[in-house]
């Protein structure tokens, strides 16, 4: 065997090993969600469930109310997607296509907010919402999306917009188009892939958020999937196989969204990474 073939085999076996390690926990949630209480506590662990106990899901969805939690999570996600899609693309267009005084100053301000860990502002922001008597509602989780939609999203869309040739805008200006027409008719259709990436990241981001929902939502009938799962887990009487079914319910939508939009995910991530 020559050097190159041996190198190939080494590369592939390492990749298979790593991929196995990365995917295994996801498989483990799935297998644990299909066992009963006795099986999940058995040692050595059962690697492949024999009787697939789908009843676990029925129990978590209906008796533990996960169906309601899923609905609640979407009550947050849908308006957030609208707000992010609208205001982050507006800001990105302003920063990438229009010259105006102090532009660099405002843009560096946007970048700096990416570098600020959200925990620094969590408590005072919470106190602000308390003064407005709006805690224990979805508004603190929704409204910020309509104000820029996240610095990172603005950054990503701007990077993408910079790759589109300027001639397009200029010819539209010659034809007498205003900036809003250029934004909505010329540029937006061209940035669809990047916009889809932003919306997919946002979906996963809201679905995966825990701290924000934990702080702002108190009533159980307002709970999201994350809060429902956390409560189920901290309840000492909850059996492990039901916790795992709840965990799987939280994993599936994020994974499905990723698999559908895989291309947009990887392109979107690459856009932010290379053209810093």
């Amino acid at each position, binding site marked *: 065997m020559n050097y190159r073939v041996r190198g190939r085999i080494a590369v592939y076996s390492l990749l298979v090993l790593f991929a196995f390690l990365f995917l295994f926990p996801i498989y483990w949630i799935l297998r644990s969600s299909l066992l009963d209480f006795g099986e999940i506590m058995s040692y050595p662990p059962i690697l492949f469930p024999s009787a697939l106990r789908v009843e676990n899901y029925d129990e978590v969805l209906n008796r533990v109310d996960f169906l309601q939690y899923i609905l609640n999570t979407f009550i947050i996600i849908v308006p957030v997607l609208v707000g992010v899609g609208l205001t982050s693309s507006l800001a990105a267009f302003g920063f990438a296509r229009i010259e105006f005084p102090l532009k660099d100053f405002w843009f560096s301000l946007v970048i700096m907010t990416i570098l600020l860990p959200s925990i620094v502002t969590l408590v005072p922001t919470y106190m602000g919402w308390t003064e407005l008597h709006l805690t224990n509602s979805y508004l603190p989780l929704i409204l910020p999306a309509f104000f820029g939609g996240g610095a990172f999203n603005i950054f990503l869309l701007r990077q993408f917009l910079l790759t589109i040739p300027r001639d397009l805008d200029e010819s539209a200006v010659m034809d007498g188009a205003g900036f809003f027409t250029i934004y909505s008719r010329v540029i937006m259709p061209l940035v669809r892939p990047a916009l889809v990436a932003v919306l997919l990241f946002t979906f996963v981001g809201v679905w*995966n958020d*825990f701290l924000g929902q934990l*702080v702002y939502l108190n009533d159980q009938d307002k709970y999201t999937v994350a809060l429902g799962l956390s409560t189920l887990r901290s309840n000492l009487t909850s059996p492990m196989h039901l916790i795992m079914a709840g965990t799987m319910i939280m994993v599936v939508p994020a*994974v499905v969204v990723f698999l559908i939009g895989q291309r947009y*995910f*990887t392109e979107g991530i690459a856009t932010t990474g290379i053209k810093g």
Partner: protein
Amino acid sequence: MTTLKKPASYRSYNRRRIWAGYGFISPAILGILLFTMAPLLYSLYLSFTNWTVLAPKKWIGLANYRKIFMEDYFFVKSLKATAYYSIGSVVAIIVVCFFIALLLNSAGRAKAFFRAAFYLPTVVPVLAGAIVWVWMFNVDFGIVNYVLGLFGIDKQPWVGAPDSVIPSLIFIAVWGAGNVIVIFMAGMQDVPKQLLEAVEIDGGGWWRKLRSVTIPLMSPVIFYNIILAFINSLTAFTQTYVLGRNGGGPNDSALFYAFLIYREAFKNQNMGYACALAMVLFVIVGVFTYLLFRLSASWVHYEGGRKG
């Protein structure tokens, strides 16, 4: 045919442009003022008070800060745990993800499949990931100790003991860092093939190629990933929230700073004190980010003076 515009209409075009520019960015600017600047100032003010939600605010000067630096045992503990986790996870993520990206880059047709496999854990909610890892790390029933047992290795406590909890959480952090692999891969595609071949012609092996071509050319991407992983490590909350009955890990050994702020504010109702803690974090993050950027000048190379 379009006619040339006269200077007068240029002026009005200019004015229109400035208005439009500010119009487009105004929601984002308002957002920064409302949800970042205002909270920062409010937090600074509250940090000088002893607000506990129930009792009225009282100005207490620097008392919160004095308590943080002179008396608070948990502050020191939390700072140590956070620094350990932050440095450990940044180094582990950069090294492991760079290595995997290198492997992937020479993988050929299966690249897309493996890339998806490595990215998948990144979309798994942190809460779900933490729950299953804690279960897999379980001392008595966990699959990890079972597999180690097959190789004759004794049971390890993992997240169950103060000494091993943070290394275990770093392990979980690497598992969820597939986005870093994707960014590295994209950067590696921009490394010119000719340069690598030139090293080969000079008789250099893979290490020489890595050391003299790939790493220097990738330095801006490496820097970007370090910054991202650093900020991310400071927001770690969920992974310690799920450890044990009250969170924070065994004997508060994984009392991450974000969790400390949360506990002071929402469990102990010490809003003023939590704000003071947040201001201290703000200063620490500022100093470290500044240092990272300053240090980067010596090892990050931008091609053709391309700006970072």
